[in-house]
């Protein structure tokens, strides 16, 4: 055990603390993706609605044509007001979410104040950049959507990242994953000509998200969609001023019956 550390070590930076303990985030060595059927997670979306941001994801993870898992939670709570919706390699994405969660909590506890939203976004950018090497070798690429409620400006915020860590703020909605191409245009259409997403109430937003996930699953074999009979309901979370609320399966089933099947 080393001697007593100076109190100023790390300045609330959990990533530095981890690397000082010899922990590596990225996969090491030269990687060859051709030998591996990668597990990938598929359709996630985030949209601003009246109370904040709604974040939704299907539950399926696939490797090639094989369904690896159909209970994956791709929308992960990071702290009281932010969530990460992941697409891409679950191995890396779940690790990223965990690092992120610890980073925010570590910062808050050590520095005695909440990390700013800007600071949180930078942390995620850094994580994605550290993963670029692996992503370029065709393994472990992650394209997350970060959705948060900004308690200072009092509104929902959505950020989208590319594989290299570039960050874009989306004003209305963001989609990611293999099934997202099928619903991106639909969301644009809905927002432009049917009803502004930001004017939707929670029920309308949840209904639209369910419709989108089913549409994505219809065209994308890797998206699980809504399979009610198998209890495979998507994860839908509402991020508002009050915090994060996971929409329970009872409500999902009821809205699904009315808005998706009944319509």
């Amino acid at each position: 055990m080393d001697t007593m550390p100076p109190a100023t070590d790390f300045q609330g930076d959990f990533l530095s603390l981890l690397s000082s303990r010899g922990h590596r985030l990225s996969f090491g060595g030269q990687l060859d993706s051709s030998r591996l059927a990668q597990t990938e997670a598929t359709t996630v979306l985030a949209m601003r609605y009246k109370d904040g941001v709604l974040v939704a994801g299907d539950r399926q993870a696939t490797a090639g044509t094989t369904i690896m898992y159909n209970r994956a939670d791709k929308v992960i709570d990071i702290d009281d007001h932010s969530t990460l919706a992941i697409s891409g390699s679950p191995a890396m994405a779940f690790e990223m979410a965990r690092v992120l969660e610890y980073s925010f909590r570590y910062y808050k506890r050590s520095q005695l104040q909440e990390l700013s939203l800007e600071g949180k976004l930078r942390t995620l950018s850094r994580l994605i950049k550290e993963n670029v090497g692996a992503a370029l070798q065709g393994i472990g690429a992650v394209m997350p959507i970060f959705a948060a409620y900004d308690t200072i400006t009092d509104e929902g915020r959505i950020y989208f990242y590319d594989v290299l860590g570039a960050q874009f703020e989306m004003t209305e909605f963001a989609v990611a994953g293999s099934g997202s191409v099928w619903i991106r245009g639909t969301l644009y259409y809905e927002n432009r000509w049917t009803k502004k997403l930001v004017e939707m109430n929670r029920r309308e937003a949840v209904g639209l998200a369910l419709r989108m996930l089913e549409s994505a699953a219809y065209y994308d074999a890797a998206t699980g969609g809504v399979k009610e009979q198998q209890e495979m309901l998507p994860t839908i979370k509402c991020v508002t001023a009050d915090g994060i609320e996971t929409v329970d399966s009872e409500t999902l089933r009821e809205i699904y019956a009315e808005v998706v099947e009944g319509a």
Partner: protein
Amino acid sequence: MYDEPHRWLQAVENRTQYIERRLRAASPAIGLPYENGALLFTVCPHGQRKVYEVYDRLALAALGHPADVERLRMMAINLAHTEGFTRSADDVTLQRLLNFAIAPQVKASFDEVFRSPIIAKMLMVELTPNGAEPQFFTLNFDGNFTHRKRYGVAGGTSASEELMLKVLDDESPESTSLEDALKAAARTWCIGYYVATKEPEYDEPPMPKDADIAEMFREAREDLRFEAAVLDRTRSGRAKYRELTTEELSALDDLFPDNAAHRD
């Protein structure tokens, strides 16, 4: 100079006395269980802090030199977070943190008689996941630590700590409510601080008079700030720590009605 055993002993003795002298006027910290978890209470000057969140179910209250407190606090936070991240939050326990990491380092630092010592004590509390009673640990400046189930105290002198423990033994809070735990903690603080600062010459100080306790409380309320936090197991999410609000602390307003504070 320190190669002879008795000289080394003398050096350790001097060091202990020096630290004890520096800690004498420190504001005590008191930890008590209540219906939803555990309470940590202390009194500190305005603009300062002494009660901190360490991890999801761990908190501490410290006394001593702020720079030393900060080192101990960061050591605890760093250890807890790396352990929780690489293994699991369930593996982060006070017993492990203290036994295998913090206490040995504090002891090593205490033994280095050529370097400036750690002038600090900590009261740490842990909320166990299975809903059992909270665990209290007091870490001394020499690396020694003690474990208590029902409550914990850390004070400027060992005599004041003993008296505070006796008070908590004899006068358990009226109920398990947060308000009653807070009141018991504040009363115990007054007693501990009174004997440590006003009667340091006693090895076994007598119980202060009620009027003195009330006076101590009034002085503290006027010049200082009450600080309290809880580990509340009813809180949703992993992190159970929260600081008490001014409104919750106002429960202390009627602890000593003003007339009781006046001496005859």
